[in-house]
């Protein structure tokens, strides 16, 4: 069941990555000199948002995957559950980094395979949570640690994104 869940996560991420990669053509008329610094600025804005320094409402699908999905058919439900989470657009998005990455793919003008891999990476990142939680052997303790550190993880992800994009993209200008 966990395997199907992970496959669903990867497939959902792949779909979102491909969709964003295809849509990124719409941003190409903007010069890279505008798009690349904008990506870095968006990551910094995400950092400010995740540290509570700015309030910035963002669109999200404020729902959870209904439990009936798993009750109807456990195996197909696990796949669907993973797929919906993997797309990143079917459930709550509680951190800014996914928005930053989505906008970066849209603005970045990378080859389609890079956008696809970014989406698969997103799904894989989501898959890490249940896998490491299970491996910890103490899910309650792991959940408690996560609650303590989640804001740090969210903020540091935006910081790493800002530095990485600045390192990767700005020298190309």
């Amino acid at each position, binding site marked *: 069941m966990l395997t199907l869940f992970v496959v669903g996560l990867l497939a959902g991420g792949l779909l979102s990555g491909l969709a964003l990669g295809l849509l990124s053509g719409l941003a190409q008329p903007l010069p890279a000199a505008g798009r690349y610094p904008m990506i870095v600025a968006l990551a910094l804005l995400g950092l400010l948002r995740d540290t509570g320094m700015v309030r910035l409402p963002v669109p999200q699908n404020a729902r959870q*995957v209904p439990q009936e999905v798993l009750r109807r058919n456990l195996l197909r439900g696990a796949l669907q559950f993973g797929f919906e989470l993997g797309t990143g657009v079917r459930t709550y998005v509680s951190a800014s980094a996914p928005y930053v990455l989505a906008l970066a793919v849209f603005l970045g003008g990378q080859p389609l395979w890079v956008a696809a891999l970014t989406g698969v990476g997103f799904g894989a990142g989501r898959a890490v949570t249940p896998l490491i939680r299970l491996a910890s052997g103490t899910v309650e303790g792991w959940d408690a640690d996560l609650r303590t550190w989640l804001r740090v993880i969210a903020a540091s992800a935006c910081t790493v994104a800002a530095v990485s994009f600045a390192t990767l993209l700005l020298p190309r200008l």
Partner: protein
Amino acid sequence: MSRLATHPLIPAALLSAAALALAAQGHALTWAVLGGLAGYTLSGSV
């Protein structure tokens, strides 16, 4: 597995280090790793 090895900070730290190292080399895989990091920030959200 020890609680330290599976601490929630560990994946974030590993993905962050990988992203920064790949970005320094100008590698396109930076995008995939940053995607992974972004996905991991949604831990606990279902």
